[in-house]
């Protein structure tokens, strides 16, 4: 019982746990991307940058204002939502009537500009952000030693994903969102302020990215490039799950994080490409994604 496939259980479990932590971030980020793409038809390439800005916001709050982790968890999503709202109002609003490509270009541009600003300000070396004292310990699960903070990240992100899923699929507000995703003009003809919905939805998606950034800050190096590093994988996750599918984004985010972790143990050389291999296979056999609807 101490080895599986010739690998010590604690090693395997540890890597799977890391995979689950990464998967949690993939899920939260791809969820925001899916919601934004569904309603705004914008492929938000600046999503990773917003995640990075969320992590830095927590760092700045702590180092410049002495605001701790738990307060950051509440404040940063609100701040990032306001950033998102400003971006939507000032920039995205003007290009909805144009091809997808323009939204992609605009958000890439925004990502590069912000990355440049953060590199100028903080350098590319990276900052460290401590886990809160109450979660700094470890728990012995018998088969592995679990750092408490990692357990918390997985729980918090699963909770957030479930709450978002519930909001969209089971509430009246979510029904507006689903309907506006299908046919925004008719929803507006029912008297619903669709332009405001677009603004708030973008703000919400960015708040999720910011929240993921705060959750990630204690487990990774906070660097200006942390967003670019993760965003390509997250796009692959969205494609695998099915563009615009809420459940698909969550499930494939978690699953691919686990798969990456497993690959790190079994065949480390492939761990950074396995997601893209899966993406290629999915595109080959189910082009709409695992949870996407075929047109």
């Amino acid at each position, binding site marked *: 019982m101490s080895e599986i496939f010739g690998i010590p259980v604690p090693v395997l479990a540890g890597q799977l746990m890391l995979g689950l932590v990464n998967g949690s971030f993939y899920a939260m980020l791809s969820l925001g991307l899916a919601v934004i793409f569904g309603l705004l038809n914008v492929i938000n390439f600046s999503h990773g940058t917003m995640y990075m800005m969320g992590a830095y916001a927590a760092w700045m709050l702590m180092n410049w204002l002495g605001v701790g982790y738990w307060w950051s968890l509440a404040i940063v999503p609100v701040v990032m939502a306001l950033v998102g709202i400003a971006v939507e109002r000032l920039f995205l609003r003007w290009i909805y009537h144009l091809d997808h490509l323009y939204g992609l270009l605009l958000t890439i541009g925004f990502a590069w500009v912000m990355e440049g600003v953060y590199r100028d300000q903080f350098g590319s070396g990276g900052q460290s952000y401590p886990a809160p004292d109450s979660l700094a310990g470890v728990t012995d699960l018998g088969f592995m030693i679990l750092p408490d903070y990692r357990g918390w990240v997985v729980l918090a992100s699963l909770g957030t994903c479930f709450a978002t899923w519930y909001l969209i699929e089971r509430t*009246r507000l979510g*029904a*507006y969102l*689903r*309907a506006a*995703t*299908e*046919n925004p*003009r*008719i*929803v*507006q*003809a*029912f*008297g*619903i*302020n*669709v*332009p405001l919905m677009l603004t708030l939805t973008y703000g919400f998606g960015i708040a999720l990215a910011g929240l993921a950034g705060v959750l990630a800050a204690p487990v990774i190096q906070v660097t200006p490039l942390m967003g670019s590093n993760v965003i390509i994988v997250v796009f692959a996750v969205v494609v695998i799950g099915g563009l615009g599918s809420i459940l698909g984004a969550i499930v494939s985010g978690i699953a691919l994080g686990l798969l990456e972790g497993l690959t790190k143990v079994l065949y480390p050389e492939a761990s950074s490409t396995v997601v893209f291999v899966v993406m290629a296979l999915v595109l080959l056999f189910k082009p709409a994604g695992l949870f996407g609807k075929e047109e």
Partner: protein
Amino acid sequence: MAAAEMLRITDLHSFYGESHILHGVDLQVGRGEVVALLGRNGAGRTTLLKSIMGLVGRRTGRIVVNGRETIDMPTHRIAALGLGYCPEERAIFSTLSCEENLMLPPVLRGGGFSVEDVYGMFPNLRERRASQGTRLSGGEQQMLAIGRILRTGAQLLLLDEISEGLAPVIVIALDACIRSLKDRGYTIILVEQNFEFAAGLADRVYVMENGRIAESLRANELEAKAGLVQRYLGV
């Protein structure tokens, strides 16, 4: 007469991008009236309804709803004045159940149907309430598209081709539905291809051609001028 006016359109021009679709439309609808817009495909009838809702690219002229100028209003503010729009494609949402579709439009003002009222008028919808919206039959989808704008308290209904492609028995049911709405004081603009259906319901008829109003007739003139109308509608 002025107090009883629900809608007055003056010199309306509408555009989709570079295409100029409506060329100076004038039209009045009194409160409680049923008015039919007849004409060939492409005459501009659907565009006229969309223009009233602010769903075209650009529009100029005047569109006064219940005494309020709406030409510069965004679509959702126009709807809030008490307009209910039932588009030609019905626009039933596939990601929503029948009942979610029905409950989707927010109540804009008092005096609308309750859900029970809607089910009373269209009993089929009650049986299909949990079904996915787009799994309903064509007739059921049409009933749903009409029923869901009755809940909002809208008093001016814009109904685009509601009899199109439906079995005669369904068309008869819709005829009864429109009559009952008229009895309740609703103001209705019908865009119709089906002359018989429209002529049986309308107090007045506008005939459109090439983005203009070509003829305006009272119901009692229709028989005498049937030949004229048929010429406009004939292919």
